[in-house]
């Protein structure tokens, strides 16, 4: 019996060993190196292997670094909320209003922009939002505005670029949740006298919250760590934390400060995960 149990244990470990080794080699070890490096310092153009919290203290002491974190949080929360507001109706229309045989096509159309390179998509938005871009030319052409709107190289441009990407992601997670429900919940609520709004508010929304939360968490994680969209669309008119991290690496060769800022960014993501997981557990309970 013992031999069989041991064999099972060995078998189990051998199944998870590749994943475990991969995670240790490419996540745990690099993360440990980054954590250690965040305690070092760059002095006089050289990295000195001291043990100090100076890089973390500097983060709270330098207003432009702290502001980068606040900018990142503001943009990420805004993007997540707008994406949910746009993705939910889209997912609902696909799940509830589009005939089943067309749903696959509708989903493909919804995620079609995923097929374009992320960088190319961001530059395309820059052209669309520019002073001479499609939006301004159209608004000027039909006489709604006299002067071009300042859309490109602003936070608005960054948010638009992000929302375009994350609406697709959230649509998928919410749609997956909606199709699992089936029509009976809605019918039962209607039989009990609920109107359309009440069905949505008291039945559909609570039941699809897990899908929304999972999509929102993914949006939060991907958005707060993204460098490309704010760099291309923001015009360097404000810096988000990933941009500041890149400045430390690219311009200053200050890897210790970059490591400390990355650890802080990761702490925010971890906090978001803990809150999300805790909420999902409470929901299940």
């Amino acid at each position, binding site marked *: 019996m013992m031999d069989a149990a041991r064999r099972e244990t060995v078998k189990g470990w051998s199944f998870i060993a590749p994943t475990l080794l991969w995670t240790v080699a490419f996540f745990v070890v690099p993360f440990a190196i980054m954590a250690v490096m965040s305690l070092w310092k760059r002095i*006089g*153009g050289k990295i000195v292997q001291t043990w100090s919290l100076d890089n973390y203290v500097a983060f709270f002491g*330098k*207003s*432009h670094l702290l*502001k*980068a974190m606040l900018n990142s949080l503001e943009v990420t929360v805004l993007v997540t909320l707008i994406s949910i507001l746009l993705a939910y109706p889209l997912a609902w229309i696909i799940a509830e209003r589009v005939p089943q045989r067309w749903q696959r096509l509708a989903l493909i159309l919804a995620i079609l922009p995923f097929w374009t390179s992320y960088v190319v998509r961001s530059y395309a938005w820059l052209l669309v939002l*520019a*002073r*001479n871009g499609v939006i301004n030319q159209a608004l000027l052409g039909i006489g709604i505005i006299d002067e071009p709107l*300042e859309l*490109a*190289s602003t936070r608005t441009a960054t948010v638009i670029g992000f929302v375009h990407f994350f609406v697709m992601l959230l649509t998928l997670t919410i749609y997956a949740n909606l199709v699992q429900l089936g029509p009976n919940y809605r019918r039962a609520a209607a039989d009990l006298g609920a109107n359309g709004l009440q069905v949505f508010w008291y039945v559909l929304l609570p039941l699809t919250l897990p899908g929304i939360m999972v999509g929102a968490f993914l949006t939060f994680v991907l958005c707060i760590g993204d460098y490309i969209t704010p760099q*291309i669309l923001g*015009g*360097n*008119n*404000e*810096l988000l934390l990933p941009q*500041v991290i890149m*400045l430390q*690496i*690219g*311009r*200053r*060769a200050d890897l210790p400060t970059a490591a400390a800022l990355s650890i802080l960014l990761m702490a925010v993501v971890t906090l978001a995960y803990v809150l999300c997981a805790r909420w999902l557990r409470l929901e299940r309970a």
Partner: protein
Amino acid sequence: MKDRKPNNIVKRGLRASALALLAGGLMSTMASAADELNALVWCDHTDPGLIKPFEDKHGVKINLKDYEGTGTALSLIEQSQPGDWDVFVVDGIDVPRVVDAGILAPLPADKLPTGDLFPELVMAENHTRDGKVYAISEKFGYNTISYNKEKVDPADMNDMSVIWSDKYKGRIAVYDYYLPVMGMVQMGLGKKTAGLNAGDLGAIKDKLFKMKSVSKLVGDVVASQTAIATGEVDILVGGGEWVTAALTEENPALDWTIPEQGGVRWSQSIGVFADSKKKDLALKFVQYILSPEGQARLATSSCYWAMPANSKAGSHLTDKQKAALRWSEQKAYLARAQLYPAPSTELDAKMQDVWTEFLQQ
């Protein structure tokens, strides 16, 4: 008998194939390593029109990695292994600190065309240490003001203070490189770029913040060129012939000037890495870039145009190209321009802090 068993034949075959593949792989790696040169450069060197003639002549492959700003280059070098790089193109003003860091190898002075350079570009104090030459100027130009003459009053561009005035609010882009732009602000404040010190940073910061409040965007080479070329902005702070020369054919309205206070002169230097294992080939590449033909190609390369350091390159440029580069006006321009600020490591860190604050405004 044993060897004739099918299983063993298969095994032997596989073993032989694996060895052949391994040997072939190693040989091809060694061959490619011997025929390749790795160069860390500004983007103007990535033009095939510049590189291909050298590759064809010597039967080698040049692997190019382009960067912007010496800090970026030093960061890349720090993250590389000794011997990874062979040729280094770096801001002329930064050559001393690169030499201090032991990055560059001495070059044979008698094999370089130093005598053919414009005298201001020899920059012996930057390129020479203890009688040894470590780099040589290859290209130069000005970080000053580029503008669309149909959209702004060209007379306004003669005063540096236009870059922080409200007159063109929202129509200004700033080139995202702290050294030339802070040098321009220092000149706008009536001071010399060479004397820039920590005490000047307060006044520079005030003007930078004012500049940010009237500017539309801060962008790298491509972003700032695109902004002025597409009409997104009408003025580019930090621009110059490197922005407009290649664009004037498509858009003749684009122009540049050096204000009364002067402009910041930039120059690129080229050298060979001390750890390079192919110093001879690297030196040949340096010689090619410094040759009149190479210089003409470099001056008009696709990423940005600018003046060649070698005065003999003129015979390989067309009149139109020389006009775009303002070849005949260089004497006056050189007299009015000042070099980039050359901060110590400590001052450089403080300047970068100010620049980050400027970006964050």
